[in-house]
């Protein structure tokens, strides 16, 4: 079994070289700030989750088995993203491509299911303009969906150079590490959405 190769640190004395640790640390900070953004949206959702204005409540709208399946698919995609990131660190090009491609496919299925749910709500007369509860629901879950869409685009953008280059450059390793962090962050957010929106809503 191949061992993980640590990325070279050359921070002393030329600080412009040490891109790896600076970028990943910066990315952690970005993820933290995005957590806060979702925190504000969660707060809004929790405040408004009972303000249905005479419309249907969460309990009648959500179908838990559907969302549970969606959650399982997304969780597997987090696993493949993690494996893909680890393969990139081991400079294993084929496995990196394979695992991130799997992440991409699972992500597409997940987002398809999500849009299907959005469609089911709005075509049933429960669009975001019907009540504060639905507005908050669409804003929170929709923001997550937009993040996933960006993640999917990002997978394509990062995999193309890996496909073309021989081996995996240290730049790609750095970027794929950030991508994997981002994808796992989206999973954590989804876990919170599943718990606070779907599970508590279906109660």
């Amino acid at each position, binding site marked *: 079994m191949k061992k993980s190769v640590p990325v070279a640190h050359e921070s002393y004395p030329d600080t412009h070289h040490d891109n790896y640790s*600076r970028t990943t*640390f910066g990315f952690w900070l970005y993820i*933290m700030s995005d957590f806060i953004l*979702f*925190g504000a949206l969660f707060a809004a959702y929790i405040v*408004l989750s009972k303000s*249905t204005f005479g419309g249907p409540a969460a309990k009648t709208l959500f179908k838990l088995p559907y969302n549970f399946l969606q959650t399982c698919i997304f969780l597997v995609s987090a696993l493949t993203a993690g494996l893909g990131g680890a393969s990139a660190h081991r400079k294993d090009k084929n496995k990196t491509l394979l695992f991130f491609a799997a992440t991409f496919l699972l992500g597409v299925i997940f987002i398809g299911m999500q849009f299907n749910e959005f469609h089911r709500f709005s075509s049933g007369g429960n669009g975001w303009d019907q009540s*504060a509860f639905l507005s908050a629901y669409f804003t929170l879950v929709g923001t997550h969906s937009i993040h996933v869409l960006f993640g999917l685009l990002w997978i394509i953008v990062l995999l193309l150079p890996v496909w073309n280059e021989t081996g995996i450059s240290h730049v790609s390793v750095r970027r794929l590490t950030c991508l994997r962090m981002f994808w796992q962050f989206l999973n954590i957010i989804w876990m919170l959405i599943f718990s606070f929106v779907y599970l508590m809503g279906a109660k």
Partner: protein
Amino acid sequence: MFGRLTLDAFKHDWIEYLAGVSMIFGAIFFIALITHYKRWGWLWKEWITSVDHKKIGVMYIIFSAIMLVKGLVDAVMMRAQQAFAVGDSMGYLGAEHYQQIFTAHGVTMIFFVGMGVVFGIINLVLPLQIGARDVAFPFLNNLSFWLFASGGMFILVSLMIGVYAGTGWTAYPPLSGLKYNPGVGVDYWLWSVQISGAGSLLSGINFLVTILKMRCPGMTLMRMPIFVWATLATMVLVVFAFPILTATAAMLSTDRLLDTHIFTAEFGGNPMMYINLFWAWGHPEVYILVLPAFGIFSEVVPVFSHKRLFGYTSMVWAIAAISFLSFIVWLHHFFTMGAGANVNAFFGIMTMIIGIPTGVKVFNWIFTMFRGRVRFTTPMYWFLGFIVIFTIGGMAGILMSIPAVDFQVHNSLFLIAHFHFVIIGGVLFGFFAGYSYWFPKFTGFKLNERLGKYAFWCWMIGFLLAFLPLYLLGFMGATRRLNQYDIPEWQPLFIVAGIGAMILFAGLGFQILQLIVSILKRNENRDLTGDPWNGRNLEWSTTSPPPFYNFAFIPEVHGRDAFWAQKHQKTQPILRKYEDIHMPKNTAMGFVIGSLSFLFGFGLIWHMFWLAILSAIGMIAGVIAHLYQKHPDYHLPAAEVAKIESRKQSV
């Protein structure tokens, strides 16, 4: 094609035409000047696409200076209105126009003057103080500036095309919702705040990484200059607070664009939640503005007192305590909302507690001066003015932190006086101190001291005349944002305030004069040593102005006040050989993405959705193009470094 942009959008009253025409003439004059001296290539290569933190800092400050002039003109116009509009007189400004002016004044001053000077000074000074050659992500730094600038452009453009928000700078719903404000004003507000906020967030991440990852060898956390500590705390606040603003503004946007009902008064929406979320960002924002100013004073006072800073450790802990507490006081902005006695009491007590670390800092500065050899230079004048004004303003704040008192003065001019005392006295005076202190570092010559002191006295006297009467007016019941009133007893105080605003404006005039005179007579005030004030920290150890790579050798640090120790050590420094320096390349992508973000916002404001979609695609394509760039940096050969260094020594 043009959404809701019709010819009506260009119809304004004569005052707005005047402002618009003068802006257009200013732009034409600037373009003509650049063309005449054939400086377009220089402007593009040396400034617009530059990733050099020093140049980005200068651009921030120039942009903020323009916005400061605009914001001050707004202020003088409001005071002139209030001096006359009593009883039957309606003054010279219509109510519609007046409410846009007070909104634009607040947004301009907080987002584009306060934030601009803060990021300007941090950009200029911070990498030098930690002995780094640049920030962690130089491209991101350039992008942040252009996002900030494009946010500011919305305010200027709204003078000519359409209207600005008339809601006050906080844009509370339901007033700012679609039902009561269907026009473009609030949308201008939203996108100016949203886009510049994104820039601030990126800067926050950038500087946090810079401080934690790029300090020179030997500079442990507890050896950092206090300005660096203040910046570190500020950036933590930026990273924690700005996402809340982004989310809140985004939700208000969906309310207005997509017909959601998050903050509306009907369909179960909750406008009070907006006020909570807004101030959950808004109160940390106050400290984002003032902590760097505290940092500047902590640099200025020791240098001009010829003493090391009193109570370094307590300064650090005070900064940490302030930044923590700043997140649990937001409710004091709306005690009157009716959260209940216990909640109000908690937030009132927290607000009083936050005064303690602030007081610690004030005492530390005063003790630094105690038994020091104080030199009364311009930066020191600003500091002394700050101590007086800021302390009075802070006391007023403590008074208002008692909920029962706040019920009496809520939204009155007493409040206005309070926050102008702490923001002008704190942030602006802090910036002016830093401006005159660090000016020689980046230009190679000092500012004219005499004109600087004239400017200080105008600001000081003008400020007190303009804002002390507001405390009285607040007690007499005058509320904020009045364009007309019926009580003749108020008028004399308003007239005094108006005169104060004029004197204060004259102070700005002196500062412009000071800059011009200093540039013309620069040979008299040359700084050839790189250390004109007998400074204490690393920024003074390189030449004035510093080479673009800042330091030929990355400095090594063995304690606090690193440069002071270097100057006073007995042993000679070891001579080393020059080495290749790794530097980032300039990039146009920051400017391109920033400009596209302006078009994106403009498209959404005027409902030109094709424009918004195209520019969004353009921004994403720009980021991808930047990712695919092959060699974003280069090596400056050692021979080149040697040449630059020897040229400096022979000067």
